[in-house]
């Protein structure tokens, strides 16, 4: 087991009240497994992974629950210890590669610095490794690319450079937060291919955050659907896409226009919009938008329960 998260709760004190960004999230991740986390803005998908990375430093934040990496508790770990893990055993890539790159140094320099921060090797050895890494992430001319500055690269190439940086220390866990959202589909296809290949060669476990159901269905082994800070459904890719159970998952899949076949005259849209975390509805947060909503939904929050394929819904539990 690489990662085991139990009953994670993250809340932020704000002027307008307490924001419960994550409200009881649990999941496990095995070696070389890809977990897809799907959700809309405010669903808590990013915050939960920032918590795993120990990157929530806001003094107004409270983090409760347990995050175990290879059996070791990360919640409450001193910053120095966390820094030793981050970038080394646990790596992260973000939506905008420029958040991870500085414009004033070359790509080669930046990746080499990352390696030397965690490994005791010479500069020239590090540079050799950088060239290997850039070749691995399919830079057509890795040697030349090392002397490039980020602004000289296209968006797709920058994201590849960041992936090379993330892989530089052979991480056991790679967290990717919407890494392809800002990219064109043609470039995205290449990056997804790369993630699949790296999982095979590096045996890294990957948590892949996205809002795109299509991306998840192409990449993930297991899927977790989040809504308003809670996991509403989880299951293997096959289970989730051939037998979606939670009304939110079903509605979300239904509202995607098809790429082939008959065009529906109207798309089956979900009414309303995702709730504000400051004013969550009573009971199930999806209740007000749910087509099969009934009285028990207002009384309490449904639990996800156990089992590989589970949905947090009273209707599903009843059936």
């Amino acid at each position: 087991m690489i990662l085991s998260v139990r009953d994670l709760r993250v809340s932020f004190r704000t002027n307008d009240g307490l924001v419960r960004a994550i409200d009881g999230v649990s999941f496990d991740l095995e070696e070389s497994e890809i977990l897809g986390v799907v959700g809309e803005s405010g669903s808590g998908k990013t915050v939960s992974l920032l918590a795993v990375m120990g990157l929530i430093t806001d003094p107004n934040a409270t983090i409760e629950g347990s995050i175990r990496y290879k059996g070791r508790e990360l919640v409450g770990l001193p910053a120095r210890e966390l820094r030793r893990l981050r970038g080394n055993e646990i790596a992260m890539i973000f939506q905008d590669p420029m958040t991870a790159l500085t414009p004033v140094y070359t790509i080669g320099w930046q990746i080499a610095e990352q390696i030397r921060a965690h490994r005791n090797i010479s500069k020239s050895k590090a540079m050799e490794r950088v060239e290997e890494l850039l070749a691995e992430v399919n830079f057509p001319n890795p040697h030349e690319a090392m002397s490039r500055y980020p602004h000289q690269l296209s968006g797709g190439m920058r994201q590849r450079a960041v992936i090379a940086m993330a892989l530089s220390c052979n991480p056991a866990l790679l967290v990717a937060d919407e890494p392809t959202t800002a990219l064109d589909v043609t470039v995205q296809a290449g990056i997804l291919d790369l993630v699949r290949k790296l999982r095979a060669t590096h045996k890294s476990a990957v948590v892949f955050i996205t809002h795109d159901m299509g991306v998840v269905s192409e990449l993930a082994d297991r899927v977790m659907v989040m809504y308003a800070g809670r996991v509403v459904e989880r299951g293997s890719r096959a289970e989730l896409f051939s037998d979606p159970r939670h009304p939110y998952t079903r509605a979300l899949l239904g509202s995607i226009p098809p790429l082939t076949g008959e065009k529906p005259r109207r798309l089956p849209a979900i009414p309303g919009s995702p709730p504000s975390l400051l004013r969550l509805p009573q009971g199930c947060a999806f209740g007000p938008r749910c087509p099969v909503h009934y009285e028990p939904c207002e009384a309490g929050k449904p639990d996800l329960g156990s089992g590989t394929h589970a949905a947090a819904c009273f209707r599903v539990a009843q059936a």
Partner: protein
Amino acid sequence: MIDKNRPILETRSLGRRFSIGSRFSAEGKRTVHAVDNVSLTVWRGETVGLVGESGCGKSTLARCLVRLYDISDGELLFEGNDITSKSLSELRPLRRRLQMVFQDPSASLNPRRRVGDLVAEPLRIHGRLSSSEITKRVAELFDLVGLLPDHVMRFPHEFSGGQRQRVGIARAIALNPDLVVLDEPVSALDVSVQAQIVNLLADLQEKLNLTYIFIAHDLSVVRQVSTRIAVMYLGSIVEEGPAEEVFAAPAHPYSQALISAVPVVETTPGGTRKRIILTGDVPSPLNPPTGCRFHPRCPIAAERCRSERPQLREYRPGRKVACHFPTM
């Protein structure tokens, strides 16, 4: 109702050049052909979808079509009248008939004004309505786009992204336009809200007999909305045809790669879609390749493609491709 006898908008070899750099920079002054030799006819009542990778010139073309950008080459005709070089004051009466909706509604809504006021603005500028008539029209517009009557007193920040886009749409349709150019109108929205806006646009088109030019990078959304699509690459149209046909059987190798790259939800494991992964990046429009501009990335490029640039040709009625070896 699509009326094939009446083109509402027509471009003839339209081009837009930008010059960048200065004579003091290392490379000197250079010219980018952001839009190059585009001839496109838009019929009344239809939706033309423009697709292509970022930097292909689709947004520049859209802005040329409503004359937000000046046109460098070619002609632009609105209902048969040449408006290529009309002055701003001459364009003014046309503005009400040609409207635009942008990607980020919060960027086009003044945060310090109430949304009712924002929707009334075009009415005040163009209309000859009294203030009570304006209030009535605003209420009507709010109803049309699915906002509640008491929303008029709110400020933009009090709305969700989807509602803000509804306000943007209300502003665009306030003057009963004929043509609306929508530049990525749903890209900034949550997935669950996108479908609502797509449906709203379809309803409005039917009710108000609008013509749309729709730009989005999400190809499945474009297919849903469009009757016809034009695929752009490096400033030019490489394929044009009825949306469903082009998606089912793209003829240009670039369209094939683009459409095959869209990730789709496979309910049956081990789906049969074959993916074409393009190598390399989109070349810089500053220094476009010779011959067919797609040839350095094209899986079927031949000698001829390196030297001779293929023209957009009509292979079948309504189906145009710019390729020496189209799959047809």
